[in-house]
């Protein structure tokens, strides 16, 4: 494995914030998995999100799994690429969508809103940006970190109100839940899906990836496993 230049998180955000519309340097075909592992985030042009939504996603992921502290953050591991790709390649196509819908059903009866994940993001981002403007006069991505965190927390706990903005079906916590779930999935999935770049998340936590061969380890109780991960494509870390 050669060491690839990893742009700092700030450089990525700065580059993407400044370049509107985003300058696209080599466009990689999104549908082919093997193309995704080599992507540099600052050069990636999203295929599902529009430019404005993309700025939100970068900023939100950057707070959900930040760079500060031990371990890689969501931007360093290309989590936004994962989310963009998943939404573009049919995430949610397996949901039963026939009506009538009953959005106010008790949560123990499961997902009952009339939206595919693509709608959840579209509506959730739009409304969150509206709230950010209402509360701070700025879009989400321009807020201070603590204000971003506060707004994300409010989404998570339904401390803000989508219904007041005309969204009858979806609660903020549902949008937040989708976003957080996809962020964690992108962080921890095999790199072939576009996230977990260079298996950095796996290296940080000590998961051996797709090796899937441990006959000689099952009897070694309480011995720390020493070997780094391998990805489905065969890359080593």
């Amino acid at each position, binding site marked *: 494995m050669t060491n690839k230049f990893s742009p700092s998180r700030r450089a990525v955000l700065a580059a993407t914030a400044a370049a509107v519309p985003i300058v696209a340097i080599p466009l990689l075909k999104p549908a082919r998995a093997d193309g995704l592992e080599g992507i540099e985030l600052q050069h990636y042009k999203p295929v599902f999100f529009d430019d404005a939504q993309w700025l939100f996603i970068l900023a939100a992921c950057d707070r959900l799994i930040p760079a500060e502290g031990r371990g890689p953050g969501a931007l360093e591991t290309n989590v936004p690429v994962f989310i963009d790709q998943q939404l573009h390649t049919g995430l949610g196509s397996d949901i039963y969508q026939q009506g009538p819908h009953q959005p106010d059903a008790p949560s123990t009866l499961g997902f009952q809103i009339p939206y595919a994940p693509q709608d959840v993001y579209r509506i959730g981002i739009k409304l969150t940006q509206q709230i950010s403007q209402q509360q701070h006069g700025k879009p989400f991505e321009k807020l201070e970190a603590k204000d971003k965190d506060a707004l994300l927390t409010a989404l998570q706990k339904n401390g803000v109100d989508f219904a007041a903005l005309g969204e009858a079906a979806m609660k903020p916590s549902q949008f937040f839940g989708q976003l957080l779930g996809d962020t964690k999935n992108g962080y921890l999935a095999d790199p072939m899906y576009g996230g977990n770049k260079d298996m950095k998340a796996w290296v940080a936590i000590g998961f051996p990836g797709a090796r899937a061969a441990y*006959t*000689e380890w099952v009897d070694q109780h309480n011995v720390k496993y020493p070997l780094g991960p391998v990805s489905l494509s065969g890359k080593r870390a």
Partner: protein
Amino acid sequence: MKKLTSLFASLALSLGALASAHAADQDLVTRGQYLARAGDCMACHSAAGKPSFSGGLAIDSGHGIIYSTNITPDKEHGIGNYSEAQFAAAVRHGVRADGTQLYPAMPYPSYAKVSDEDIHALYAYFMQGVKPVATTPPASSMSFPFNLRWGMKLWNVFFANDKPFKEQDGWSAEIKRGAYLVEGLGHCGSCHTPRGFAMNEKASDSSQAQFLSGGDLNGWAVPSLRGMPHWSAQDIVDYLQTGRNKTASVAGEMSLVVEHSTAHLKPEDLQAIAVYLKTLSPVVASKSASVTPQGADATAKKLTAAKNLSLGERLYLDNCAACHFVNGRGAPGIFPALDGATVVNADNPSALLHVILAGARTPSTEKAPSILVMPGFAHRLSDKEAAELASFVRQGWGNQAGAVSESEVSRMRAGIAKHGS
């Protein structure tokens, strides 16, 4: 009433005679079908998607494409008009009814050893037991000068051995049976005997030291069958019957031979073949003196500890250990052993590289119906990585064979792309 009874009686008698004649006929056809399995006629004369024995299989001779012929009893498109003598001439001497020479892609030099009795049964099968098919396969297109069939006459003079089967001194009946099957219908020498510059087999019977001493098939190093010192007779029988024995698993062209031919042979015939092969003096394998095996314990320990691994060792854990395990012993009858395997220790690493890149698949046979698939790793290993991995395996545990170069892997990868996996 009496007249009717006697009429019925004589009818019954002649029907009975017809029936038993028919039964004898049917026995002959069944025997011929069995011998066609032994000769594996369908390997070339049946093509995927086409009716059995109607030909049309493209065989890349290295000098152009040979298409197998229609050997169904269709009178216009097949061999329906052949007399038994013409059938015998084609099978044993490579001469068609119209006098043209067949290319020795048809292994007539081996089939020269087939007895009259067996030719008779084969003829009965192909005339009565096979459905006629009214299609003519494409004509072969060999490059100059191989397209000049009269040249085959010359080739035959110099290179074809059309002597009948000859029993050697000291053979038991069982060994004789095994030798007859191997030298003749089995035509094992077609792949397992080395060939000369004119593509002739360098030996054709058990009296010659080079017989079955190993060959090359489109870049695949074919092992020697002489003596088979690492396998018992039972191992040989198991392998021929199922494509797997306690340490090995079939790969490459031999998979089809097992599936279509040897898996259908009677246990006593397989036993005879095994016993015969073990009488042949083994080829002395040239061990790579410069290679010191890592040692079974040392390799298993190093892989288990998973520290300070060489690239080859790391690749082994990332790709191979899931089935072949850190002791390189696989699982009996299912995952072949790598420690001590012929294909791993062969001087020529081509077969090993082919399996690493393109995988292998056991045939489904009566005695062992499971289809077990080893995936190919071409998409997961660069040429350099495959070379490191193969080199590691070839000196891991007790193995003692030389390292493999990156260019050998590139060549093999290109060859697979050209010929198909």
